[in-house]
């Protein structure tokens, strides 16, 4: 029983170490270091030996001493004996080894005698590995977007694996792609258009949705249930089936290539979400406040402005942030409705830029960074509001 658990534990933990080191090696390769192989067998054997011996040594040796001994052997074998590598690579390895060693601290022979010890260990290591892996998989494209925007065409072609940023060069050279897209591709104007469209959508959507949400939440009228269920159905309907009729009608009315056309469409498509989110919140406001207001002979509009609005600032701001993000990220309608570069939004402008195969990739990535940054900033800064809204089943995507 114990030997089996011990072996399984050692194998799992050495796999964990192996995957951590492999991710580090990939990262290192992306900083321009030449690495031809992962040295998988050696890392695996070292990890296995460490975990295995760790159970026997346990408290007989100080943790720091144990760790240092292991780290020196590891660095010597992996870093120097096999391939001569710079110091910073090995410092990273030492940090990983420390992380690994501290995680294995809690497993001892007593723990391994536990009935479910192997499953517990598997769960623990899978969680740890998952966190590292998912952070890597998710953040890497964003990192790549940022780094590519700081590179030159030649550097990109010479070594596609070099993801280091050269900070020694002139600031002007570093931000060259940004200068170019602002000066020769008119990105300033596109940012302005995108901002106007997004803020306009937020404003109009709130004006339309607050009264409607209030009516659905509070007032009794014929067709109320029908309206609240149809909101959900409409919310499910995709933009792609609206595109052709709207395109034909907008062409004939001359609303294509205009900001007002986009505003109308964006408002209409975000209204159901906004109403759905707001009415849910309005329902949670105690009714007694309004009853007092009715006795004071306040009109319905007065009630909305003087009582409902001040109480629902958090909900309204979360709706506003959402609508802003939806409008800012929107692509389909801007693709269909805008074909004059003078009225492009940011997303459409980047797509237009990529349509030309000659456009250097770093310009494209600089544009992508510009369109992504505001959204991520808003998201991280207002995360609390947004997450509660997301779970309410809002953002469409």
């Amino acid at each position: 029983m114990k030997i089996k658990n011990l072996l399984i534990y050692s194998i799992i933990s050495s796999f964990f170490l192996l995957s951590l080191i492999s991710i580090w090696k990939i990262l290192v390769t992306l900083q321009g270091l030449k690495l031809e192989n992962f040295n998988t067998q050696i890392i695996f054997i070292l990890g296995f030996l460490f975990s295995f011996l760790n159970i026997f040594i346990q408290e007989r040796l100080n943790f720091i001493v144990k760790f240092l001994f292991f780290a020196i052997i590891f660095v010597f074998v992996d870093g120097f004996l096999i391939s001569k590598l710079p110091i910073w690579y090995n410092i990273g390895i030492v940090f990983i080894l420390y992380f690994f060693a501290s995680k294995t601290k809690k497993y001892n022979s007593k723990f391994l005698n536990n009935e479910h010890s192997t499953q517990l260990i598997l769960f623990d290591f899978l969680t740890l590995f998952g966190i590292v892996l998912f952070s890597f998989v998710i953040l890497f494209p964003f990192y790549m977007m940022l780094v590519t925007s700081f590179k030159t065409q030649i550097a990109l072609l010479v070594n596609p694996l070099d993801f280091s940023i050269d900070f020694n060069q002139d600031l002007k050279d570093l931000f060259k792609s940004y200068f170019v897209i602002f000066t020769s591709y008119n990105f300033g104007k596109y940012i302005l258009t995108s901002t106007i469209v997004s803020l306009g959508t937020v404003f109009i959507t709130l004006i339309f949705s607050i009264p409607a949400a209030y009516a659905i939440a509070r007032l009794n009228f014929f067709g109320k249930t029908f309206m609240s269920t149809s909101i959900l159905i409409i919310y499910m309907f995709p933009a792609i089936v609206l595109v052709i009729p709207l395109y034909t009608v907008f062409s004939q009315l001359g609303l294509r290539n205009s900001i007002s056309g986009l505003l109308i469409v964006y408002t209409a498509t975000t209204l159901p979400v906004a109403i759905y989110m707001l009415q849910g919140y309005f329902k949670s406001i105690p009714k007694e406040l309004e009853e007092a207001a009715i006795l004071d002979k306040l009109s319905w509009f007065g009630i909305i402005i003087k009582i409902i609005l001040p109480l629902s600032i958090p909900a309204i701001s979360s709706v506003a942030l959402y609508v802003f993000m939806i409008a800012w990220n929107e692509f389909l309608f801007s693709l269909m409705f805008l074909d004059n570069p003078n009225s492009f939004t940011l997303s459409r402008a980047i797509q237009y830029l990529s349509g030309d195969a000659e456009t250097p990739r770093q310009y494209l990535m600089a544009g992508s960074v510009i369109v992504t940054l505001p959204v991520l900033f808003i998201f991280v800064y207002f995360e609390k509001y947004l997450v509660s809204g997301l779970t309410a089943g809002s953002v469409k995507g």
Partner: protein
Amino acid sequence: MEQKLSKTEKKTAYILTLPAVCLVFAIILFPIFANIWISFKEVQLKDIRIPEPRAKEIVKTIPDEQNKIKIVYKLRNSSLLQEIRNVKFEDKFPDNFKPINLHERCNFKKNKVKCDFGNWPAKYRENFEIIFEIKDSAKIDKKDLKSSKPRLSGDSDNILLNTNFTLKNFKKVIFENEFIDLLLTTFYYTFFGTVGSIVFGILTAQMVNQKFYGRTFMRSVLLFPYVAPVVALAYTWELLLDPNSGTLNSLLVNFQILDTPINLLGQKYLDINILGFSFKLRLALTTVIIFEIWRYFPLAFLFILARLQAVPKDLYEAADVDGASPFQKFFKITLPQITAVISILFMIRFIWNFNKFEDVFLLTGGASGTRTLPINVYQQGFAISDIGMGSAVSIVIVLLLLLFMFFYFKLLGKRADEN
């Protein structure tokens, strides 16, 4: 009193909801019905522009005659296909202008020239001249003359409003366009994208539900792909997967996992041999599905995490007392607790993935076996310029959606009954 109050209540409710209802009706419901109308018509993209009479004004001086001026209007019908009936013309001139030998189709009154040009066939062109005599031979400001633009008007048929209907579009959609292949691709894309995002959602939610350092940061990082703009993400992935200078291929080649780079977004099939079984993997479609999973698992993650945090702790404590293993706890406690969320998520994501257009469009443009139904709407309507066909495909999408929604609301109703 009560009655009166409820009456005003009703009236207020209608006033409050009316603007929103009207807008949603005009921009969302009207187009869905308009699709039905258009899908039974033969309409090309070029037909939807309403023909307009146009005029370009050129001012010319006449040599040797200082007090005369010639104005030429280049008239044309903007449409190459349709005629314009009853074209009317009107232009205003300064007080001291007087036309000589005005054409019989026109008259001059109160400094205005008004003409009745009759019917213009398609592609019609004419150079129309008026010669003016200037009474007090003052200097003529050409710019001033040009600034008063002529006004033209005319009647024409709107091809969208006539009543010629045909079943041709639907016949083409169903019998010609590799319809089965289209449906299958859409189904693969939707189904595997949905299942994948839910599986990764469960994994990550289970992960983040444990306590560790940097947990809140991890939660926001996991949501990044979902909130960032598609355009930026799609192009970054394209760069990442590029066969010539892409990072992924270079990495794989560098570590000798691959001999030659593969075109993950441009290759339709990949032959795979596992244990003697060989089959063809739809490579580009798989890549697009992976992008889809990467981008949308955060939604599943968020929903499932919220549900996991609401699972009572004593359930797990009781299981610990009974000596349950972690796997037993997961399958016997966690999974039953989140099945409701998963089934709703499955329906929502299934419907939304079914309609997804941007992701595939930006990554492959529908090439190499990634043409889904929404992509087909775009291709028919705008690449082939056949609006009628595009609408017919839209109708197919709407019908399938209604079917899915029927199941979705049935499921919702069932859930509501259970609670």
